[in-house]
């Protein structure tokens, strides 16, 4: 990973003297702060300038960037009211003024209209103390793509400041349920990572479960109970076309795409109800059985190199995580701490395994370091479930409870930064983070 230019999560202490005296001891501050909670780097994202017809740009790009950086939990965006000046280009930035505010980085930019529905977005990121530009970028956009461009800018700014690729341009899929009893409806939804642009993918009176993204973000696999039996569908998002890929007698469940997008791992129960892990080739429809144990073997997911399948099995008495070679073989147990470990999901960098762990009577999200075997509990609820890594391996999204309803939370993989997504009226569950968008 690239070494970040500004690797400090310094708390703004408000005085120039305090900040400059600590510059030389920056390394020590880093160690302190990463142990703390709520230490945010102060940044200023100045409202972008506008050159074009009409009162202003079609989108407040600075607002989207500021909200993205804030939502990451690592940054504190200065309010517009506190801004003494509002430069739109580097040449106009007076660094000393911004230092007084305690701001460590500043983003300035402008939107220029170049055609009827054509714009040019330019932004610059500056290090306030070093008085240097860290990144400058210009990109074209239309009204329709402007929000996506703002997220891309936020991703670049985030990566420059933290060394970690941003995930502001990604999407989340999840299931909602509304109503009670016979009137209950279920919806499969895709939205931007910030909750905007919610799109209903599928709606049903019967349960929908276990959405899974294809690696190219174009398809979702999911379980549907339409017709009062479980079946696995793969739906293309752009067209809405869907194919039923598994509807064998008994249980069809728990689909997950292989890293090359060509296969699904899934759970089949058969007439005898012996749940086992299988892989399905999506082209030739060949099924390969990977487990035969009489136990419940389910919740399969792939390692990022496509070689291994992780899954839940209660063959030892209670649910634990196991792994097996994707080409078949003997399963090997992976979790040994606690009486209940289930629903494994590996981080895209292959270093961590997220799972549901029973922690002193509470079902919580835990992260297992694959190398050190350390298990870290990262959530604090009692009914937490369905963890999913962001494509940068740095954050997770999962479902927790707020009263009667399920709500979504994100947490950093080290457990230090947690935030709750706005809860609406529905019961939200089973979030799954999309891969990085392919451009």
């Amino acid at each position, binding site marked *: 990973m690239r070494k970040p230019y500004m690797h400090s999560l310094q708390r703004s202490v408000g005085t120039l003297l305090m900040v400059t005296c600590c510059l030389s001891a920056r390394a020590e501050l880093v160690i302190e702060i990463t142990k703390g909670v709520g230490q945010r780097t102060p940044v200023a994202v100045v409202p972008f300038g506008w050159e074009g017809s009409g009162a202003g740009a079609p989108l407040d790009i600075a607002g989207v960037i500021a909200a993205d950086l804030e939502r990451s939990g690592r940054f504190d965006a200065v309010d517009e009211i506190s801004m003494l000046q509002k430069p739109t280009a580097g040449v106009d930035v007076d660094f000393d003024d911004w230092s007084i505010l305690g701001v460590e980085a500043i983003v300035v930019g402008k939107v220029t209209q170049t055609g009827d529905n054509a714009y040019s977005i330019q932004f610059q990121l500056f290090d306030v103390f070093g008085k240097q530009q860290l990144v400058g970028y210009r990109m074209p956009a239309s009204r329709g793509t402007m929000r996506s461009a703002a997220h891309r800018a936020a991703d670049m700014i985030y990566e420059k400041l933290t060394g970690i690729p941003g995930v502001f341009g990604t999407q989340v899929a999840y299931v909602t349920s509304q109503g*009670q009893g016979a009137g209950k409806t279920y919806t499969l939804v895709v939205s931007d990572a910030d909750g905007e642009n919610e799109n209903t993918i599928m709606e049903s009176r019967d349960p929908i479960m276990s959405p899974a993204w294809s690696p190219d973000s174009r398809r979702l696999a999911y379980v549907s109970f339409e017709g009062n039996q479980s079946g696995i569908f793969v739906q293309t998002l752009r067209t809405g076309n869907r194919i039923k890929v598994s509807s064998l007698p008994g249980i069809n469940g728990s689909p997950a795409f292989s890293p090359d997008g060509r296969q699904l791992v899934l759970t089949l129960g058969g007439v005898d109800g012996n749940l086992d892990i299988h892989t399905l080739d999506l082209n030739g429809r060949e099924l390969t059985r990977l487990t035969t144990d009489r136990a419940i073997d389910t919740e399969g997911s792939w390692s990022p190199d496509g070689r291994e399948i992780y899954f*839940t099995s*209660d063959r030892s008495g209670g649910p634990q995580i196991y792994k097996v070679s994707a080409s078949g073989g003997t399963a090997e147990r992976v979790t040994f701490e606690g009486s209940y470990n289930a629903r494994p999901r590996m981080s895209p960098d292959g270093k961590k395994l997220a799972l549901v762990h029973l922690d002193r009577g509470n079902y919580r999200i835990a992260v297992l370091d694959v190398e050190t075997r350390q298990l870290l509990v990262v959530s604090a609820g009692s009914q937490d479930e369905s963890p999913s890594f962001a494509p940068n391996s740095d954050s997770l999204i999962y479902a927790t409870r707020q009263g009667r309803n399920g709500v979504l939370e994100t947490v950093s993989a080290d457990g230090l930064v947690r935030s709750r997504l706005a809860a609406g009226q529905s019961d939200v569950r089973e979030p799954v983070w999309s891969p990085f968008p392919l451009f």
Partner: protein
Amino acid sequence: MRNSTLALMVLLALAAVGCSKNTIPDPEATTAGSEVGSDTSTGGYGDDGLSGGEFVDNDLLGPDGQMGMIIYFDFDQSELRPEYTDLLSRHATHLANNPGISARLEGHADERGSREYNIGLGERRSQTVRRMMLIQGASANQISTVSFGEERPASTGSDEEAYSLNRRVEIKYTQ
């Protein structure tokens, strides 16, 4: 959540619990269905199941007045409690005597823990009931199983009472 919405949800929850008599039901309680009578036509799948025979054992009616039964399970268990054996064998005999009718066994689990694993727990319970019915004379092609895991709770609470109402298999007659 608005108070009126909350009140409605509470009422619905109470109604749901009320239908199940608010405790682990004694299987004898299904005889309350005999007040409904076998010729009550309220629609639904149960009625078609009656057309194959002349006499209906009212003991085979479930709490909703349709042919069926609900079997409850202990925490972390898929073993059948002894008190269900007799009634279950009567359902099995009914199937054995009426090869044209079928039943679907819908397995459920309480909400704790992981969803797809809970599908497995619900299925395990369905299979226990299925095996019992096959031993008692029903044929394999008359019985299908499905598991809804925690997705279709009978009770929406998060306490032990709600959990005990959700760990169940529902026998539903289909055509």
